[in-house]
């Protein structure tokens, strides 16, 4: 098995799976009908992308693996998503801040992944990029609305940005599998996206009258399977059906 490629694909797909799960939690619980549907739509976009990645990963893994077994039957330490995406929907500000901080990265990442020498990955990137462009437009708009809205909305979105800022640096960290894939021309050297990322993020935050956090203390670990305390609860929720009724299908 191509171990590094397998790990690399999970590293990409797990971000979308876990963020998709978080957004899906809002289905029927959004602040109003319209935003509820918008968040669920983004969730479904992400889960659609995830299916393509996991189907590919299942082929590489063999041993009877399927997209479902990869999505639902791993243990916490075998998920390689960044810490940012597993953070909870504390309020709508957190949901949009998390979305925005991930979307800007996601779009930059997919733009580069299109150039991958792995044709399956570049095809998935090309297919996903329009969806993710819209996600970034949507979340950026909300950042501006909340930041430049009322005193309360500004305070709340500022708090969310401050709290989530500590998880942004991990996006640009390369694991051993990442480095190996970069060398083979398959992977994206995410460290090179960092400047463009903080430039775009800062522009939107400034327009939104949100102060850019100055903290230089960053957390990481998700890419190595070491997660925050929120992850276990999320997985318990997400994996319940497959654990309780193994191999069940809709």
């Amino acid at each position, binding site marked *: 098995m191509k171990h590094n490629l397998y790990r690399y694909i999970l590293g990409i797909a797990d971000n979308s799976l876990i963020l998709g799960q978080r957004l899906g939690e809002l289905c029927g619980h959004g*602040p109003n*009908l*319209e*935003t509820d*549907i*918008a968040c669920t739509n983004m969730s479904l976009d992400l889960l659609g992308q995830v299916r393509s990645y996991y189907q590919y990963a299942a082929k590489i893994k063999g041993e009877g693996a399927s997209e479902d077994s990869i999505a639902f039957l791993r243990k916490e330490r075998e998920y390689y998503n960044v810490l940012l995406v597993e953070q909870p929907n504390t309020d709508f500000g957190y949901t949009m801040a998390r979305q925005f901080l991930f979307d800007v990265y996601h779009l930059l990442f997919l733009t580069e992944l299109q150039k991958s020498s792995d044709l399956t990955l570049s095809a998935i990137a090309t297919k996903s990029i329009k969806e993710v462009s819209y996600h970034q*437009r949507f979340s950026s*708009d909300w950042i501006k609305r909340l930041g430049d809205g009322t005193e309360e909305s500004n305070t709340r979105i500022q708090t969310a940005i401050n709290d989530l800022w500590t998880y942004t640096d991990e996006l640009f960290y390369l694991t051993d599998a990442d480095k190996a894939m970069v060398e083979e021309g398959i992977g994206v050297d995410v460290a090179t996206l960092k400047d463009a990322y903080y430039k775009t993020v800062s522009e939107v935050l400034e327009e939104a009258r949100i102060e850019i956090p100055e903290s230089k203390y960053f957390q990481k670990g998700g890419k190595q399977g070491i997660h925050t305390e929120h992850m276990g609860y999320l997985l318990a929720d997400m994996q319940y059906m497959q654990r309780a009724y193994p191999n069940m299908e809709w």
Partner: protein
Amino acid sequence: MSTKNWPLWEVFVRSKNGLEHRHFGSLHAADAEMALENARDVYTRRNEGVSIWVVESKYITASNPEHNGEMFEPAQDKVYRHPTFYDLPDEVKHM
């Protein structure tokens, strides 16, 4: 759920190029830009459209149903206003 409601907007969607925009429904949004994005998510997520118009509902002037008598009934017995009194040659198949 917020207690202060955003204004209501009417949504018109053109389902294909060449067709006209049709009224699809209404939704709430704080301004026109948000109304467009909400309309995109609420009404075109199943590939229903290629173009969206939104207009705040308060800008639509509607006829009063109480006046339907004087507004519409006079037209009911004027069948001669329909172009149905021409004999079409058989060769004209689609008219």
